[in-house]
């Protein structure tokens, strides 16, 4: 059942992004920023956690989940380190995804050639 909800919720969140692309003049960069900031806001309001609980990766894989991860990281860091946690929490939580992307970017630029792309 969790797989079904992951597919449905994940697909649904992508449709929201598609509607933003087709119906507004927002560029991909702006849509990604909007999703991450919305994710932080929804998580702060306590609305994203229930979604993540029942949709699993359907809620955590879209970039809204990236915002949720930042907000959750900040929460636990503030509890442990006080105000300093507000600075360190978000990125400690999101470090895995960001570092993986950057490492892959460097490795890919060394391995692949530009002409391989279409």
């Amino acid at each position, binding site marked *: 059942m*969790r*797989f079904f909800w992951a*597919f449905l919720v*994940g*697909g649904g969140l*992508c*449709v929201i*992004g598609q*509607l*933003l*692309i*087709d*119906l507004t003049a927002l560029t*991909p*960069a*702006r*849509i*990604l920023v909007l*999703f*991450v*900031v919305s994710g*932080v*806001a929804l998580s*702060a309001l306590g609305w994203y956690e229930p979604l993540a609980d029942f949709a*699993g*990766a*359907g809620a*955590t*894989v*879209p*970039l809204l989940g*990236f*915002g949720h991860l930042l907000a959750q990281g*900040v929460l636990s*860091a*503030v509890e442990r380190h006080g105000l300093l*946690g*507000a*600075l360190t*929490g*978000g*990125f400690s939580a999101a470090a*895995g*995804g*960001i570092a*993986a*992307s950057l490492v*892959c*970017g*460097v*490795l*890919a*630029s*060394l*391995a*692949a050639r*530009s002409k*391989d*792309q*279409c």
Partner: protein
Amino acid sequence: MKISKEEYDKLSRQVSPKSKLWTDCLWAFFVGGTICLIGEGLRAFYQTRGFILTDASALASVTLVVLSAILTSLGWYQKIASKAGAGTLVPITGFANAVVSPAIEYRVEGLVTGVGAKMFVIAGPVIVWGMMASVVWGVIYYFLRPMLGG
């Protein structure tokens, strides 16, 4: 029903943006849903290997990032993206694609000002504004916490 060429043109123009929107959304839904389904499968797999839920989630994200980087290097991700639109943009694989794609494209401009700088064309704004939002929330939470009795 008889209609002139002009009328037909007008009618088709009224109808086609809607049907394009419908197809776009279907593609986005199925491709985006499938990427999340793979993510859920990876998460379940890592959980059976003994990782706690948060670690399993992070590992699933990292695996998706690596898969996206490989598909981007092969030029396949862009082919799927031309059909799937937001279905490939919104998941974390889209973020990885936005990092890897310019890294490959600007390799000719060197490792520092080419690869190092251009990787952040889309990832930079996402990281900056994601960080701003999380810091603001962290400060609010810091002052809110005593009032919540925490």
